[in-house]
């Protein structure tokens, strides 16, 4: 298992580096753990990254896990953006959020496959 600690500023200026770090982790291990508790600033690009990483994991058939408390900034941004109704309590809830997203994704994917 590889652990990637998301940076204090999970914003558009830094996401390129974080993306590379996560991709590297996926290459080295089938289970990647993102630690979110360090995040103090987050923007939409940072949130993108979480969803994008989940989608990557689904495609590769890898596991993406989350750990740490959900920092206030991240929780607030998730609620404001409508990604969830309430601030996620901890990493498990955040994980469930991504799982739901990926699940729909997979279902939709399947249906499109079937049709074509």
């Amino acid at each position: 298992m590889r652990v990637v600690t998301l940076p204090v500023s999970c914003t558009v200026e830094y996401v390129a580096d974080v993306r590379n770090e996560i991709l590297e982790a996926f290459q080295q291990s089938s289970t990647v753990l993102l630690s979110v508790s360090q995040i103090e600033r987050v923007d939409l690009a940072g949130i993108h990254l979480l969803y994008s990483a989940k989608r990557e994991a689904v495609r590769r058939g890898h596991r993406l896990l989350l750990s740490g408390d959900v920092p206030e900034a991240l929780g607030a941004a998730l609620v404001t953006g409508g990604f969830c109704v309430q601030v996620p309590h901890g990493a498990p809830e955040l994980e469930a959020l991504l799982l739901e997203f990926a699940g729909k994704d997979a279902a939709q994917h399947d249906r499109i496959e079937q049709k074509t």
Partner: protein
Amino acid sequence: MDNFKEAFRDEAYELLNRLESTLLELEANPKDTDQIMSVFRTMHTIKGSAGMFGFDHIGGFAHTLETALEDVKSGAVSFSSELAGLTLAARDHIRELLEAPEPPPDDLASYSAILSEKFLAAVSAARPADTQQAARKPSGTEAPARVSPAGGALVTYRIHFMPKPDIYLNGTNPVLLLQELSELGMYSAVPYLDQIPPLSEIDPERCYIGWFVFLTTTSPVEQVRDVFMFVEDSAEIEIQVIESLEDAVEEQGYKRIGQILSERGVIDAMMAERAARAQRRIGEIFVDEGVSEADVQSALTEQEHVKKSRERFQSELSSSSIRVSSDKLDHLVDLVGELVTLQARLSSTVKNTDEPEVVSISENLERLVDELRDRTMSVRMVPVGSTFSRFRRLVRDLSSDMGKRVDLVTEGGETELDKTVIERLNDPLVHLVRNAVDHGIEVPSVRDSAGKPKMATVTLGARHVGATVVISVKDDGAGINTQRVREKAIERGLITGDEVLSDEAIYDLLFHPGFSTAQAVTEVSGRGVGMDVVKRQVEAFGGSVRVQSIPGQGSEFSLVIPLTLAIIDGLLVRLGENHYVFPLSAVSECIELHVSARQQRRDSFISNRGEVLPYIHLRDVFNVEGDRPEFEQIVVVQLADGPVGMVVDAVLGDHQTVIKDLGRMFRAIEGVSGATILGDGSVALVLDLARLGRIAIRENADHAPAQAR
């Protein structure tokens, strides 16, 4: 629409009242940024709602003020007392405008212009010299934007926000825009995530998410659009009104999912129709038909949001306070009064039966009626504080007109009084406060040489004393000059030169019609109209006025007001064949008085628990004939001056007393304030304890010298 206008007026009056007290506080503490913000916000709200309801002139005027105050808000200009005065004047002007038709008559409109000019001049004069030129010129009386939806109140918007992929390039964080939207009202957002590519394909500096946002707010569409002001080129923004809550509140359901989706162009009407006829869960059908889950989800969220916003709107309608005309309340109180009387009759009838079931019903009914009475009365109780706060302005204006420095202190503003009493209190209090500032308080130089602080204090207080509330106006001025009052009274022929009067008697002269000791007739007082009117008005609703004064230290005028005018708990007593009622809340105890004690002592004092208790025989006061019983009862009541005993034949018990007016014929009877109907249909008189107390004191004064002799 007229209802909305009325609601706007009500709201505006409230805002203006609050503005007034904020301004006065701000004047005392000009650096208080919270208060400055509050002034600013109030102007902003007035501007907004005025525009919404078509009061364009008020909106324009408030807009000018808001712009002028911008510099105060930013800290470039301090809030001088000149600005405070102007803002107060502007507040008064808006009040007048609210009462005038829209558009306002020429004189009011031109006064708006004059005030605006003065405002701008004052602000630019206060601005430091170097920033003067840079400062932008506020744009006169430009009308604020009108709201698009008719009626303009609570509206739900559907906002489709599709940032272009390169939106980050100009430094925009879409989440912050959404944050700003969410602050406008009730908000739900549904993001569209299906475009997010896997990590290996993502360009992390591009945006892949779009939203449907549902916003229920009173903000006009322009304000919603303003949120996206800086991203208009880098996002697709579509704002639609999906419903206006005032119209929708009667409607039962909202649009079906199919309707929502076809409205958005996701599906065609035929498909919506087909789906509606199918027997399966609607969302599944659409997903099967290839509609993206996100679209279905956002349609569901829209339904949910609309439902919630309606619920909240409705609960706000019902839970927040409502305005009820006092006529309706009076009518309700009358009915409750009738019910209480009827209940009393039932109770007394039931006493003579031995049917336990009837007794039990009667007792339960009595409990309910008691509670109904208390609740109904409490609806009419209002804290006096709201009345007090009006006087801050009066004191401020008066004292600055007269070159005096006066601070108004209020105490016991939370004390509650019947609304009708409070309304009638206003005029007497205005007289008393004016008198205190004009006659009572000395000019600062005089105060200084007397060793008193230049800043004088007028205290407006309220407190409970037994069944009454005492409202007092106290000043720390010169006190009443009894010598001058005396001279004036002799001059007017009210007393003769050799009459010896106690201080109390001299104070009583102040209430004589046409009496004034002011040396100069000012606009404020000295015209001899006032104190007699005060006394008449207060006595008209069963109150009384008391005066205390210490030369050099100040005076205190107290209004003793009955707590309520309609229904009270009473203590029923008997005198001969007649019944009388004491207001129970004034009664502290009952003591037996034996015939022997009565015969031994000729004066009317007894020793009660080591205290001297003065008492009067109500039989004497009301000329009740017949023999006295061997054992009489002394009912001890608490009055503002201390306890007084009142001797009655027998105490019968408590009684729910609906006070009825005695009518003009009997108004002059001393010691009785009203009447009530007893359970058996006979009438009992309600005692006016304050008056009786005075009789007791008078009698004791007659007796006391006799004792000394």
